[in-house]
C-alpha cells in the first residue's frame, strides 16, 4: 500500500524521486544502518523472488493451458507453449455453449450471482442493523447477546449442516406440534441464502459492531436532540457513516460465498449449483478432458480475481478486521 503511494508520487517527476531516493540512501549510510532499507538483505530478496515464482507458476500454467488447443493440452506440458505457441478460444467456447451434452457453464455462472448477491445483501444488511442495536440501543441483556453471537464464531460450519438440512426438508416438530414449518427448501436457492446468512452473520456482526460502536457519541446525541428516532438515525447516520466498514465486510462475504463449495454442495440442487460446485463436478466427470477443465477453472476464478485486483484494499481491511482480533 505504501508502494502505490510511492509509485504515484514518483511517476510525475521521476528524476526528483530518484534524487530523493539517493539522498535517502546517503542519509541511511551516514546513520550506519536504518530500519526499512536493511531489513531486506540479499538472500532475503532472493527468497522473496523465489516464493513469488512458486506462488505464481501454478496459476500461470492453467492460464496458458486454457488457451491451448486440445491436442496440445493433452500431449505436452504448458511450458511447451513458448516453443510452440498456438492460441485458441475453443476451450472457452466449448464449456460455455449450451444444449444437450454441453457443459453450459454460463448458467452456473449466473447461479453463482443469484446465490452470492442476495446472500451478501442479507447478511450485511441484517448484520448492520444488529450492530446498531448492540451498540447504541438500550435493552436488557445487550452485552450477553453480543457475546453469544461472537461465541458462535467458534462453531464450525459442519456442526450446523445436518440439522439445518433436516429443517429445510422436513421442518421441526416436537411431538405433533410443528415449531418450524416444512418449507421444502432443499435444493432451492432460498435455502442457500438462508444458510449463508446464518453462517456469515457472527463475523459480520462482530466486525460491524466494533465499527459502529466506535462512531462518535456526539452525533447520536445531536440527532436525538433534533428529535430523530432510531430508524432515522440508522438510515440517515449509521448507514452512510458505515460505508467503509460495510464495503470491507461485503467484499469479504462476497469472496467467501462465491468461493464456497460445501454449503452449495449440501443446500443447492443440481440445477441451482454455483460455478464452483459445477467445477468440482466437472473435475470428477470430465477428468479426461483436461483442456475443458482449464477453461472452466478460469471462468470460475474471473469474478473473485477481478474483485481482488480492483478492491484489494477493502478486502485486506476486512480481513484484518476479522483476523487481528481472532
Amino acid at each position, binding site marked *: 500500500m505504501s508502494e502505490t503511494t510511492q509509485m504515484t508520487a514518483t511517476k510525475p517527476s521521476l528524476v526528483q524521486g530518484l534524487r530523493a531516493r539517493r539522498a535517502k540512501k546517503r542519509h541511511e549510510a551516514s546513520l550506519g544502518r536504518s530500519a526499512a532499507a536493511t531489513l531486506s538483505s540479499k538472500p532475503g530478496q532472493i527468497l522473496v523472488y523465489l516464493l513469488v515464482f512458486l506462488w505464481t507458476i501454478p496459476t500461470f500454467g492453467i492460464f496458458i493451458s486454457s488457451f491451448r488447443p486440445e491436442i496440445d493440452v*493433452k500431449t505436452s506440458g504448458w511450458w511447451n507453449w513458448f516453443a510452440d505457441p498456438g492460441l485458441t478460444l475453443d476451450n472457452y467456447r466449448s464449456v460455455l455453449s449450451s444444449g444437450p451434452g454441453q457443459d453450459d457453464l454460463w448458467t452456473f455462472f*449466473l447461479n453463482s450471482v443469484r446465490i452470492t448477491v442476495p446472500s451478501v445483501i442479507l447478511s450485511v444488511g441484517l448484520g448492520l442493523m444488529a450492530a446498531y442495536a448492540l451498540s447504541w440501543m438500550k435493552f436488557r441483556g445487550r452485552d450477553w447477546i453480543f457475546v453469544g453471537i461472537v461465541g458462535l464464531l467458534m462453531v464450525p460450519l459442519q456442526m450446523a449442516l445436518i440439522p439445518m438440512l433436516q429443517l429445510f426438508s422436513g421442518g421441526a416438530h416436537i411431538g405433533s406440534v410443528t415449531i418450524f414449518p416444512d418449507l421444502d427448501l432443499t435444493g432451492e436457492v432460498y435455502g442457500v441464502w438462508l444458510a449463508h446468512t446464518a453462517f456469515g452473520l457472527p463475523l459480520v456482526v462482530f466486525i460491524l459492531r466494533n465499527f459502529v460502536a466506535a462512531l462518535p457519541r456526539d452525533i447520536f446525541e445531536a440527532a436525538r436532540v433534533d428529535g430523530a428516532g432510531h430508524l432515522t438515525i440508522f438510515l440517515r447516520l449509521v448507514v452512510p457513516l458505515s460505508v467503509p466498514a460495510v464495503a470491507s465486510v461485503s467484499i469479504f462475504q462476497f469472496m467467501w460465498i462465491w468461493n464456497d463449495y460445501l454449503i452449495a454442495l449440501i443446500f443447492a440442487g443440481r440445477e441451482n449449483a454455483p460455478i464452483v460446485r459445477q467445477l468440482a463436478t466437472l473435475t470428477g466427470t470430465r477428468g479426461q478432458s483436461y483442456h475443458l477443465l482449464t477453461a472452466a477453472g478460469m471462468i470460475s476464478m474471473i469474478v473473485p480475481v477481478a474483485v481482488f485486483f480492483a478492491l484489494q484494499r477493502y478486502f485486506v481491511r476486512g480481513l484484518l478486521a476479522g483476523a487481528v482480533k481472532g
Partner: protein
Amino acid sequence: MGDIVSALVITVIALAALAALLGAMYWVVGRLPKKWREGARAWVFLFPSAVAVTIGLLVPAIRTIYLSLLDDNGNKFVGFENYVDVFTTTGTRLTVFNSLSWVLIGTIATVAVGLAMARFADGMRIESAAKSAIFLPGAISLVGTGLIWGFVYAGPPFDVGLLNAVTEGIPGLPDSWGGGGDRLWLLERGFGGVDPPDSAPGVNTFLLIVVFIWAQAGISTVIFSAAIKGVPDSLIEAAKVDGATDQQTFYRVTLPYIRSTIVTVATLTTVAGLKAFDIVAATTGGRFGTSTIANEFYVTRFVQGRSGVGATLAVLIFILVIPVMILNRRAQARAEEMMGG
C-alpha cells in the same frame, strides 16, 4: 435471459418484503407504552440476526451433539459408541491423523512463509506486487486451487504435469522418487520405494497440504506485513543504536512485539486446516488415504447416509477447534494487558 430477469424480480421482492415487515414491526412497537418501547425497538433491529443464528447455528449445533449420541439411523441412544468407533476404525483413525498433519505442517509452513514474505519484502521495490502475487491464490476458490495443483501433479495417461517434468529433469533420481517422470502423484501413497501402513498418511496427503499452504500463505503474509509495519520505529532504532544486527533486531524486538499476531495467524490456519474439505474433495475425494475429518464427515453423512458417525465427526472438529480458540483469546488478552489497553 428470462431466467435472470425473473430471478432478479424475485430477489428484489423478497428483500422488499423483509424490509416492509421490519418497518411494520417497528411501527407497531412504537405504539407500545413508553416503558417497553426502547427495548422492543431494539429487538426489531436485532431479531432477524438473532433468529438466523439461533435457527442456523445454535440449535443445529446442539442437535448435532445430540445426534452424535444416537445410532446411524438416529433412533437408538448409544452413548459414546460413535466416538469409540471413530478412534478404533482404521479408516477414520487415519483421517484424524491426516487432519492433525494438515494442522501441524500447514500451520508451521504458513506462518513461516508469511513471516519471511512480510520481513524480506518490506521495503523492496516490488513489495506490493510481490505481496499481491502471494495473496492472489487466496482469492481463488479452494476447488479451483485443487484443480490448478491437479495440473502440477498430473501423471499418465496425460503426462503433462509440472512436477513430473521437474523430477524427470533431475539426473540420477530413482523412479520411485519420480525420476521416470511418470508418477501419479496424488494417487500413490508411497514414496522412495516405501509404502506407508494403512494407519499412516502417505506422500499424497503431504502434497495436498502443500496446496493448502499455497492457498493460506497470502492471508498470513498480509496480516504479518501489517503487524511488522506497526512496530514502532523508535523500538527498532533503539535496538540498532545498541548495536543489534538486523537479525537480532528481528528475533529479539520485532518477533516478540508481534507475538499475539503470530498466535492469531496460527489459530486461523489451524482452524482452516481442521475444516479442510474443498481441496480434498476436489482432488482425490478422500481416496488413497487422503481423507480428512471434514471430508470424512461429508462422505459419512451425505454420501453413506450415516447420521451418528457423521455427527460425531462434526463434533470432533468442534472439540479440536475450541482449545485453539481459547489459547488465542488468552494470548490476545495478555497482549492487550501488555500494551496497557
